[in-house]
């Protein structure tokens, strides 16, 4: 008998993947768009990447990627499929684990859901270089739990006031509840180069004044690392409407350059 050759992504490696949770306060800031394209950008840099769609209950990574998955996390949870079968190749050279839309029962964080998610992470972590966890919007228990599985957190915000307020609220909860002293920030839909850094310093000042003093250790600091910005770009809307990855269709546009720069910064760190 011959052993089937495992796909590249399934080759176990000695070290575990770096896990990055991608979250936002408010929905509709392009979190899933950023997750999918960032995964493609990291894959281009030679990383074996898996995106775990943890937006249980309202997943839409499949919509962004134009995938019609027959097998989702739901089937893994219910024992209908194995995890192997649910790991799907996505356009852009990375793998995805999709929640499947409408899994409302999982929006309630039971011990079972938590154990299953942890189990899944433990199985896939040795096989990839990086796992991106695309969490749901808002600050629910499921989102907080999904984020707690990750070593690094990236908050996606836009310069729009409600997005900024919600991003700040998310940062505040993550810092106080998970004692995170460092989070990274990506500013999407900026209207000019440099606006992202301005947004970061605004957030950092409020965090310094109001959030850091809430930590139990006196004098504790919280660092918001600026990972990059993505310019408002008509190409993004076109790609999203065609349900294609921006990096596949228009890799040279301003927004794509922003994403590639974020990937470069992530691999360098």
């Amino acid at each position, binding site marked *: 008998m011959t052993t089937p050759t495992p796909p590249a992504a399934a080759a176990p490696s000695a070290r575990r993947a770096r896990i990055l949770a991608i979250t936002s306060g408010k929905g509709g800031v392009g979190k899933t768009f950023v997750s999918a394209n960032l995964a493609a950008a990291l894959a281009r840099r030679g990383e074996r990447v898996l995106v775990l769609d943890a937006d249980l209950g309202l997943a839409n990574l499949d919509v962004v990627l134009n995938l019609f998955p027959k097998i989702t996390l739901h089937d893994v949870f219910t024992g209908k499929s194995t995890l192997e079968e649910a790991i799907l190749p996505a356009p852009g050279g990375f793998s995805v684990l999709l929640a499947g839309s409408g899994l409302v029962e999982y929006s309630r964080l039971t011990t079972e859901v938590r154990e299953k998610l942890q189990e899944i992470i433990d199985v896939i972590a040795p096989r990839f270089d990086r796992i991106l966890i695309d969490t749901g919007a808002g600050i629910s228990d499921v989102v907080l739990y999904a984020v707690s599985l990750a070593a690094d957190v990236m908050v996606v915000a836009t310069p729009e006031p409600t997005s900024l307020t919600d991003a700040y*609220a998310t940062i*505040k909860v993550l810092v106080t509840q998970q004692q995170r002293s460092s989070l990274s920030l990506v500013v999407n839909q900026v209207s000019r180069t440099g606006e992202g850094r301005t947004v970061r310093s605004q957030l950092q000042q409020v965090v310094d004044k109001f959030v850091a003093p809430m930590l139990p250790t006196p004098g504790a600091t919280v660092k918001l690392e600026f990972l990059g910005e993505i310019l408002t770009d008509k190409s993004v809307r076109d790609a999203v409407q065609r349900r294609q990855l921006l990096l596949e269709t228009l890799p040279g546009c301003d927004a794509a350059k922003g994403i590639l720069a974020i990937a470069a910064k992530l691999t360098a760190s």
Partner: protein
Amino acid sequence: MSSQPSTPQLSTLKLGAALHLLSQSGHAVPDLDEVGATVWLQAVIDALCDLSSRDPLTGLANRRHFELALSREVDRVARAGEPALVLMVDIDRFKLVNDTHGHAAGDLVIQSVAQALMDCVRPMDTVARFGGEEFAIILPNCPPSYGQTVAERIRSKVEQRQVKVPNHPPISVTISLGGAFAPQWVRSSATLWIERADQQLYRAKSEGRNRACLEMPPVSLVSAEEKGLLFGISQFQDIE
């Protein structure tokens, strides 16, 4: 044809063990001849339900009842969005009490702490014996700003209390408390909620006992002051 509920034939039921349990636990059941079979049987069932939801030593809610009440509270918080607090309470160095003064004294200490907890809470709160020397309290509609005060009141009440033990100098004990708020509007789980309160209890123990540690509530609200700073700078830089 409509079926009328038939009056149970008491003579065919084996009620000896149940009635013995009730009389042993001091539950009064009305006189059968006076109220009739149906009312009497209902009273027996009610008394058994009450018995099965209480801790025999302290008379507090037992763990079964607590878990039911907690699941209900999770649902209520998710729907109504009212803040609620769970406190896990543990008697400090209880093993030492048992080892030094004996188990009978240990039981008196547990009863005394139970009474102190009952004295500190509102009628709507649920105080339960969670197991051993551990208690749990559900405080519905408890705003985060009151949590620490309530927990501190309970802690000091127990500390001040003297447990009278026959032929023995009185014993005093302290407790550690850990508390966690339910995330408002969010459908969480009872297990996770207890776990979070337990982590705080662990923190209270490791920070030296006889103290109350509460998880910081999910501060997802952004104050006007915070918003001012967040957007004030933005306007300033735009002018620049």
